[in-house]
């Protein structure tokens, strides 16, 4: 049924003082928590001093937290670009009014890259056991033949234990290409806004497809590099998928929350319950996907019960510090979205979606917390003021960067050839 649709296609997001204030407030609270957490770590609590080789220091835990948030928020940013690319590669019509929000997540990528590299240079010895040179020295009592066998993956073509050139090259390369693809896709989308016509859409589709191929490989390898190499002895063949799944659900939850926030502010008048419903379906479906991956990894290791594999879960499940969080992780990231978002109504009513998406964002941060902390700080870790504080600081910085850049451009891809289709999206 043809009916004239009068939507404001030139709307721009206004990053008002009031919104800025609340973003800064979150950051401020985070900073306060962080400082209190650091103070508590300096003055209170005794160290457990695990192996005697390195005495525990409070910076240990701070570095571990920096790394958790670096990886997690890099994920949110790249998933924005990834989901944008998916829409074009799949010729999706329903999401046409939302593509600008997705791509705006990518503005965090350059910052994330710098933060990650700087953190690595400052904290690599505290985070990554493989960066210690004595484990590659056959004459040293710390010689580790297993890590020595894997050393080339970090140090090639240099001597093992010197400077991890191959590792850093990958990090720079991944961020470089991700930022490149982000800029390419963004500028094509902006040119489409200016000039119109379908040729930009076709170009976007081709570039999206190329990016997706690159991302398929790089997301997996980056997961080995940045997360799995913390537990250097241990390996899991589907770890890349596991990290990707966690990133993807978190990114989708963030996208849903931002979309609903903008709608509450009076933008995106063409986005109706059906679009929100589809976002809810994505969150629901990929929460189950994450659980599937998580459980596949767990079950195989549990069943085979090979010591060098099982140690990963022994470290977590048998620990007083982390044992409970495994359950919390599964409850927040599986049972909650599965049961709450199962019905059609809950995916169409913003109250449920907002609640679940917020919890999922925290839940997947917790997932990364469980990946990073046991291998870096061990029994000295935990979920305290420092963790919550730094998470809020990063979240507020991410939101600030994303909203600032969202406010600079059009909120709607106004010449997207499938806008008309998306108005009539009905499920």
């Amino acid at each position, binding site marked *: *049924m043809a009916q004239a649709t009068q939507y404001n296609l030139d709307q721009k997001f206004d990053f008002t003082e009031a919104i800025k204030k609340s973003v800064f407030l979150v950051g401020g609270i985070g900073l306060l928590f962080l400082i209190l957490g650091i103070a508590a770590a300096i003055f209170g609590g005794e160290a457990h001093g695990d192996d005697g080789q390195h005495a525990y220091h409070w910076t240990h835990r701070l570095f571990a937290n920096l790394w958790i948030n670096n990886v997690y928020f890099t994920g949110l940013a790249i998933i924005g670009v990834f989901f944008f690319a998916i829409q074009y590669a799949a010729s999706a019509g329903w999401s046409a009014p939302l593509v600008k929000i997705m791509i705006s997540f990518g503005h965090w990528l350059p910052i994330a890259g710098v933060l990650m590299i700087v953190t690595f240079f400052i904290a690599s010895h505290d985070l990554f056991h493989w960066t210690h040179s004595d484990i590659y020295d056959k004459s040293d009592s710390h010689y580790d033949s297993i890590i020595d066998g894997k050393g080339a993956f970090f140090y090639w073509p240099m001597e093992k234990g010197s400077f991890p050139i191959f590792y850093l090259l990958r990090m720079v390369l991944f961020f470089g290409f991700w930022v490149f693809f982000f800029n390419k896709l963004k500028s094509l989308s902006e040119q489409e806004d200016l000039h119109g016509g379908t040729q930009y859409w076709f170009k976007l589709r081709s570039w999206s497809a190329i990016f997706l191929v690159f991302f398929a490989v790089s997301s997996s390898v980056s997961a080995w590099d940045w997360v799995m190499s913390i537990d250097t002895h241990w390996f899991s063949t589907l770890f890349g998928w596991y990290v990707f799944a966690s990133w993807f659900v978190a990114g989708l939850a963030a996208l849903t929350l931002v979309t609903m926030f903008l709608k509450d502010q009076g933008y995106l008048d063409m986005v109706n319950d059906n679009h929100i419903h589809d976002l809810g379906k994505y969150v629901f479906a990929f929460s189950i996907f994450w659980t599937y991956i998580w*459980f596949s990894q*767990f*079950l195989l290791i*549990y*069943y*085979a*019960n090979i010591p060098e594999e099982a140690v990963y879960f022994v470290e977590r499940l048998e620990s007083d510090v982390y044992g409970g969080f495994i359950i919390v992780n599964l409850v927040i990231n599986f049972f909650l979205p599965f049961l709450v978002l*199962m*019905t*059609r109504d809950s995916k169409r009513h913003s109250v449920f979606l907002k609640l679940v998406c917020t919890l999922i964002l925290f839940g997947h941060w917790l997932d990364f917390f469980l990946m990073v902390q046991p291998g870096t700080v061990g029994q000295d870790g935990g979920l305290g003021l420092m963790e919550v504080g730094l998470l809020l600081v990063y979240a507020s910085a991410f939101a600030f960067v994303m909203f600032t850049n969202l406010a600079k451009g059009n909120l709607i891809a106004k010449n997207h050839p499938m806008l008309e289709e998306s108005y009539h999206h*009905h499920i």
Partner: protein
Amino acid sequence: MEKDKNFVVGIFDDEDVLSLAVRQIRKAGVKIHEVYSPYPVHGLDEDLGYRRSRLPIAAFLFGLLGTTLALTMQFYMMQFDWPMIIGGKNFAPIPTFIPVTFELTVLLSAFGMVGVFMITNNLKPWGQPRIFDIRSTDDKHVMAIDLAANASLGKEKIVEVLKASGATEVNNKNFED
């Protein structure tokens, strides 16, 4: 007049005309028995004022049945009926139950849905579906109106409304059974 026996059947060529006709006819106070179309017409169920299907509830309950059945079965087998130590695990290792539980949940949920759908839509093997016009499987949209349900209006009025709303043909259909 007996219910579900005597019908007026309107034939429509075009889905847009049909959707509009459904709304007009309902507005005129005529109760529509059912509309049959060769392919799904988008939004027709809303035009007909149907409530949302309750099939998902059936799916959930059958799924729950599958979950319960699978866990009970495995627990009974491994703990009581024939306890075995496999891979040094307990007799009843819960994580290894999950794949079977998942499969049975999906299986019973799907079977349950198909079964409920068939029974509620009279597609069961022993059911006798009513065919108001065989062309509804080809290229015509067919609207059936039960005369008994619209006794207050009278047949002439219904035929008139049907024709006015764009039906290309209006037929009578009577069932003996």
